[in-house]
């Protein structure tokens, strides 16, 4: 019976068999990092702080990543290992629920740790950033790392980086965004921690996705045209 349940999980894991899912997430993280850096380096009234600039930029970034992923799937993955169309709710809801849940859990844990036990209060807003990272690492382990054993090392790297970022001195983390003249409602430490976190996750996901993609190309061959 367990084997049947595991078999039913395989189509979900197939979504990242070529590493394209990780590449997409990696580019998204780096895109957010670039946007955050531009905001941190520009004065408060600058164009990078305007919603009518930031929102279309984020939509454009998401569209490019979506188009790129679909193109790779269409021209590389489907001809080699087959086409899968997922149920609509499988596409949107798990990701949305995972994102909202991880953010809420991380904020709740951070609030409890700071207000009840005084843990991490000296670290400012880096503690929630680390907790989000740990939840993200757990989500990665569950959703992606089950495909291949070496990906557990990637989950471990994400978790380790989250803890390291939280343990960095607040002044050092804040120095990353210290030149900001308009970090808005957030402190330089919070902006620095966020920037450092998404830069690290983006880089790790890009490397992991690229390795997966190369391995996928190496180990699969498109079948002969007549056999398709």
């Amino acid at each position, binding site marked *: *019976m367990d084997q*049947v349940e595991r*078999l*039913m*999980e*395989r*189509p*979900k894991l*197939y979504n990242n068999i070529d590493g394209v899912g990780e590449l997409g997430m990696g580019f998204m993280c780096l895109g957010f990092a670039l946007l955050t850096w531009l905001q941190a380096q520009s004065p408060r009234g600058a164009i990078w702080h305007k919603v009518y600039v930031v929102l279309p930029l984020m939509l454009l970034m998401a569209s490019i990543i979506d188009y790129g992923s679909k193109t790779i799937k269409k021209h590389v993955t*489907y*001809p080699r*290992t*087959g*086409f*899968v*169309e*997922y*149920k*609509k709710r499988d596409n949107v809801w798990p990701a949305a629920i995972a994102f909202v849940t991880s953010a809420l859990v991380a904020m709740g844990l951070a609030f409890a740790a700071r207000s009840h036990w005084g843990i991490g209060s000296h670290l400012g807003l880096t503690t929630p950033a680390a907790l989000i990272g740990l939840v993200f690492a757990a989500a990665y382990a569950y959703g992606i790392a089950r495909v291949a054993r070496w990906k557990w090392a990637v989950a471990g790297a994400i978790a380790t980086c989250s803890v390291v970022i939280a343990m960095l001195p607040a002044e050092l983390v804040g120095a990353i965004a210290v030149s900001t003249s308009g970090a808005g409602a957030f402190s330089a430490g919070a902006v620095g921690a966020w920037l450092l976190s998404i830069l690290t996750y983006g880089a790790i996901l890009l490397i992991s996705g690229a390795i997966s993609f190369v391995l996928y190309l190496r180990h699969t061959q498109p*079948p002969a*045209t007549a*056999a*398709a």
Partner: protein
Amino acid sequence: MNQHIQNIAELDRVIHEPGRLMIVALLFAVERSDFLYLQHETGMNKGTLSSHLSRLEEAGYVEVVKTYRGKIPQTLLHLTDAGREAFVQYRRKLKEAL
């Protein structure tokens, strides 16, 4: 007859065959897939997979649509409502039997 034994005797034999069970379990988790994906995931050769799919199509569990991806023929497979219901019942009875 013992209830457990009766449950085993009532298992859907179309689905119970290991090859077809793999196909139905994979199709249950998706909206549709193509022949190549099932071949890749199950490790079956084309003849065996075709034979199992024909049996599932006869039972009304799988819908087969022949189409083209560009100029390349593509066989799309979709688990019908009857197929989904049969698989749900199969899992329930198997759980009860175990």
